[in-house]
């Protein structure tokens, strides 16, 4: 069986969110293909790592546990992943499009002589017909990604030269427990069989890693609220929408000043500047000091009771109405249309 593999990243020995999102997506793809989901985890002190991963649907987890493997460095991780992929010959391999994922995945792809599609925003199974040779490729992975500075969306396929490998940014896919009781098998990797001494030539001298916190700048979707949200409690609605969409929540200064939301989430001239692919402005009038922080967003949706709110002039969609009515409906229709 040619399975689906996910390379799992660790943050303080917890599986990173982006990897859990990929496991969720990987389970979905494996289900459609009728194959199994397998995970690779590389680090140190990983006795109980399986428990974190199996409930997301993995059937097997390969654990490479060795003091020298944490923190991450390129070469030993590449050697282990490449070795495992060559042995198990998967059809799909997914990595996070993170500092680590974008460091290891191309190196592995080069060693495997296979394709790699960067920063996918959508992964779909589909067929491909080549007229010239009259061949149909069944069940390929359509890897859909923005390129050209976000100006185009390309669908990329790898008909031959498998595995099909892709990276995906954090927050793009949904994270969802498959089954709390799902059990899989832990397979310990004999590290010495995969790594060579030369793999440890890079020496880490110093590291300053901040705990992941609000990272509006990196989020592909932002749900932002303004004074029109009306109260701190009402911001919960926005968090609910953000949760189903895999988005971050931001706010206008009026919302921050009113105490509805913390200052680190303020967008605009005296806050952060963002350019997500989707910006949903809820109850924000769109003062120029706000707009300079978000007008480069690829798509802007405004939900406002005032048809003439200035934000509407830069929006792609204007939803004219009360956010208290609109947001619950958006959540409902989103859930309905994504099964």
């Amino acid at each position, binding site marked *: 069986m040619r399975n689906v593999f996910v390379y799992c990243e660790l943050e303080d020995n917890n599986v990173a969110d982006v990897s859990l999102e990929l496991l969720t997506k990987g389970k979905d793809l494996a289900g459609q293909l009728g194959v199994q989901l397998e995970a690779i985890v590389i680090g140190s002190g990983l006795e109980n790592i399986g428990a974190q991963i199996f409930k997301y649907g993995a059937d097997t987890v390969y654990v490479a546990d060795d003091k020298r493997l944490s923190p991450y460095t*390129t070469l030993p991780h590449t050697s282990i992943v490449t070795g495992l992929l060559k042995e198990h010959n998967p059809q799909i391999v997914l990595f996070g499009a993170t*500092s680590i994922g974008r460091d290891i995945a191309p190196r592995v792809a080069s060693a495997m002589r296979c394709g790699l599609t960067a920063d996918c925003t959508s992964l779909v199974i589909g067929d491909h017909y080549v007229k010239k040779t009259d061949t149909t490729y069944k069940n390929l992975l359509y890897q859909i990604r923005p390129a050209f500075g976000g*100006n185009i969306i390309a669908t*990329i396929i790898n008909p031959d030269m498998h595995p099909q490998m892709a990276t995906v940014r954090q927050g793009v896919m949904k994270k969802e427990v498959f089954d709390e009781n799902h059990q899989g098998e832990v397979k310990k990797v004999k590290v010495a069989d995969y790594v060579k001494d030369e793999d440890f030539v890079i020496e880490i001298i*110093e590291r300053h890693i901040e705990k992941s916190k609000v990272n509006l700048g990196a989020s592909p*979707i932002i749900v932002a609220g303004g004074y029109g949200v009306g109260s701190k409690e009402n911001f919960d609605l926005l968090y609910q929408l953000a949760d189903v969409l895999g988005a971050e929540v931001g706010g206008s200064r009026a919302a921050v000043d009113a105490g509805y939301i913390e200052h680190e989430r303020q967008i605009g001239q005296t806050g952060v500047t963002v350019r997500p692919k989707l910006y949903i402005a809820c109850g924000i009038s769109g003062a120029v000091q706000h707009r300079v922080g978000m007008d480069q967003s*690829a798509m802007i949706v405004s939900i406002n009771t005032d048809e003439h709110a200035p934000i509407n002039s830069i929006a792609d969609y204007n939803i004219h*109405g009360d956010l208290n009515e609109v947001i619950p409906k958006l959540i409902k229709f989103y859930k309905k249309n994504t099964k």
Partner: protein
Amino acid sequence: MNGFKIIVLAKQVPDTRNVGKDAMKEDGTVNRAVLPAIFNPEDLNALELALQVKDKYPDSEVIILTMGPPRAADIIREAIYRGADKGYLITDRRFAGSDTLATSYAISQAVKKIGDFDLIFAGRQAIDGDTAQVGPQAAEKVGIPQITYAEELISVEKEKITIKRRLENGVETVAAPMPVLITVHGSAPDCRPRHAKRLMKYKYALTKTEMKDADDLRKELVEKRPYLLIEEWSVDDIGADVKWLGLSGSPTKVKKVENIVLAAKEAKQIDTSDEQLEEFIKELIENHTIG
């Protein structure tokens, strides 16, 4: 030896940061003709770090390597004006359609031909393909370690370089033995400007292909001053196997391209009815904005 042999990988790219409405053709392909061709921004940061090594060790040699159409020779001239010593242009129709795997194979062959190098600097990412894959892939093909996302050159000694890296949630300082390939992040220092004397000296530099169309005076000049000839390499010059190049050597194929510049038109007005809101959600799912 008192210097290092340094290769800088640089790509000529269309300026995708200022894309206007006419940037896409009717058929959804990119209209390269209207986009200015520029030096990929992070490759300028890469050049700067290479020149900083040369500042410390003036006997170092900085060599620009670029793969592209004949007009990519502009990249080599630009780099030389700013302080690079020389450059090679890899150009051949048979490279066309290469994905990152095939591109990195071609680059690795050229790097091996240059040979005997200590450091390779590349940009983190090109602003057209946007993959950030060519650097690490080239390092793997050449068989050397890599340091990605360099932000600062901390120190360079004989056979050892120390670099500060920019990660999404912090920084890391690492030391590596040479040879090593380093990809450079946009937060690294900006590249120094053109040097007036170098501009005067090298503005007549030409490739063989460009020589064909040059006037006699200029031809004569290049013949008299061999340093003005920019070397061009074909598939055969770098000893590459065509099987691993172009479309045949590229596992990834572009099946479809949708253009989202043209898609942004008048704002759509939506009311609070179930029909309109559901239609709106479906649209966002279909065009991959959410989902």
